[in-house]
């Protein structure tokens, strides 16, 4: 797999390959092609980040621009899924969930259970999250914990181009509603990605780096931040194991618990705000089921309990960085009961 492509391209390729393979797959969203009804190019944008660029021409009628009506078109994707299509809807920024959350959490997520197991709703909602682009409080949030809280949803947070492709293909083939979270600061990250189609299983964490002193569970873009911290710490003789859950729901609890059993220490790195978050979720898991192996308090490295600030000077302090991760690791390593 010598070929390297970007996270953006990996996602686009997953969509293209699945659309070729299965004509039930349709994509929709605001400017997902771009230019509807306009005098110029019909597919002027390919999504606000260019992820879906080129699909419009190749798949006539299956790439649908929408009005700015998230409830209506996310709901439409959900309805279509109950009738045989496999829609991939783009909720441009995850922050916009507030105008369409009902369709996601009360409709899609609950159909199967409410209807006694008689509904299948294979819909994927692709959405962009995360801070770092100075996009301020309403365009920078990491709200995956909210979706993870909701039974009936699956939640995916790919941390590399390789994972992005394989997990998106799996999401499209999955028969349940999936929230596919793309970090907006990662679209240009390049990595090796096989050209062939492949699906990565949900609920299987990736041990990104092996180590013996501390387990660091990191989510999404935080996986690479944790990696930087681990490099620095290695130089200081601290051996860090990094676990990337890859899917938050389902969560591979076994891999996390196994790792903590070996290391005895846990740091969770989550760029979201801390309260009722994935950071607390994984902390609680280990405090409950891995307590016997724990040799130190469980540390969390997260954003502060504040909205995302605009100014670069503040945003750089807001997002967890390698230094903060390294400090947390050292705190837990240095702990004396």
């Amino acid at each position: 797999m010598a070929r390297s492509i970007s996270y953006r391209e990996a996602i686009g390729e997953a969509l293209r390959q699945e659309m070729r393979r299965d004509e039930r797959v349709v994509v929709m969203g605001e400017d997902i092609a771009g230019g509807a009804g306009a005098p110029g190019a019909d597919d002027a944008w390919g999504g606000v980040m260019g992820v879906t660029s080129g699909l419009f021409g190749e798949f006539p009628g299956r790439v649908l621009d929408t009005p700015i009506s998230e409830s209506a078109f996310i709901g439409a994707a959900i309805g279509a899924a109950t009738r045989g299509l496999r829609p991939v809807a783009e909720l441009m920024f995850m922050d916009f969930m507030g105008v369409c959350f009902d369709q996601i959490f009360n409709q899609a997520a609950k159909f199967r259970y409410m209807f006694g197991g008689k509904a299948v709703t294979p819909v994927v909602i692709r959405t962009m999250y995360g801070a770092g682009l100075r996009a301020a409080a309403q365009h920078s949030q990491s709200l995956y914990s909210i979706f993870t809280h909701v039974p009936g949803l699956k939640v995916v947070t790919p941390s590399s181009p390789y994972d992005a492709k394989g997990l998106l293909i799996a999401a499209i083939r999955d028969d349940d509603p999936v929230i596919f979270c793309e970090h907006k600061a990662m679209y240009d990250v390049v990595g090796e990605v096989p050209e062939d189609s492949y699906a990565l299983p949900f609920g299987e964490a990736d041990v990104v780096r092996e180590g013996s002193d501390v387990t660091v569970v990191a989510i999404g873009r935080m996986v690479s931040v944790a990696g930087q911290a681990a490099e620095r710490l290695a130089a200081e003789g601290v051996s860090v194991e990094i676990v990337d859950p890859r899917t938050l729901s389902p969560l591979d609890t076994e891999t996390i618990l196994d790792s903590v059993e070996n290391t005895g220490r846990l740091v969770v790195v989550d760029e979201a705000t801390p309260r009722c978050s994935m950071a607390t979720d994984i902390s609680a898991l280990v405090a409950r089921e891995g307590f016997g192996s724990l040799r130190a308090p469980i540390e969390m490295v997260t954003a502060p309990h504040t909205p995302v600030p605009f100014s670069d000077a503040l945003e750089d302090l807001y997002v967890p960085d390698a230094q903060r991760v390294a400090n947390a690791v050292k705190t837990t390593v240095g702990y004396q009961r």
Partner: protein
Amino acid sequence: MTGTVSEHAAAPAGADLVAAYRTMRTIRAFEDRVHEEFATGDIPGFVHLYAGEEASAVGVCVHLDDRDSIASTHRGHGHCIAKGVDVKAMMAEIFGRRTGSCNGKGGSMHIADLSKGMLGANGIVGGGPPLICGTALAGKLAGNGAVSVAFFGDGASNQGTTLEAMNLASVWNLPAVFVAENNGYAEATASRWSVASDNIADRAAGFGMPGVIVDGFDFFAVHEAAGEAVARARDGGGPTLIEVKLTRYYGHFEGDQQTYRGDEVARARQGLDCLARFRARVTETGQVSGDRLDVVDAEVAALIEDAARAARAAAKPSEVDLETDVYVSY
């Protein structure tokens, strides 16, 4: 599959008339029975009854078949029955039994049968209209002439989701019909207060579709308007908004004291009732005999009796059911 407007809008005759009457009577008898059963305290939760509004669900749904989809509301029993959901399974569901349409997990507000294109009653006001944009899209892409219908109330006509869905349906030129059942109230709030336009149908123009108003006590009026709208949708002519004006006979939910109302219900029951009017018309014109309708009434009564007894006798779900069917795989 598709046909001309006039063909579809033609008034039904013969067996179709009897079938339509049977469905309306089944809804009425079902709701009257749920009303009684609820009073015994044996039905869990709360229920919203459709009695009085039968001509709407049936006048629309007689134009539909299993490839077509509908989305419903919290007041969903009538839509379910009109779309062919099994009445015994519905009654069992309302009683919270394992034999219910949703194995007892959904209840009155969530009865669904996807195999019949019934996307579910819905506990969220305005939850349905977006969904049918999707089923309509699926029909459009499949090219099978399938049409989708959203039923919603006057209250729901003020929910942003409903309004967005109408615009989207027009923009995508979907085979969709929006049926606003204006029964004058959303809970205790009058629609003449909450809907700022004179009629809900007045909103159609703002979303680029025809809007029509029909007398919801008159099965034939609903039938005609819905027939045109469904035919237009099947023919690729895009969506329509139909406002059906009618009255609900019971309270908003069972237990509602209804001190906000006047004597509309008494007046409607006496002078406007859709079943009585239907009977009068078809017997006066000699299309169907009163005896034939009496037989239907008796058959329906037996069915409902059976459904209620079976529901009461059925087992409830148990611990093994609690955590199943959240996901297809997890």
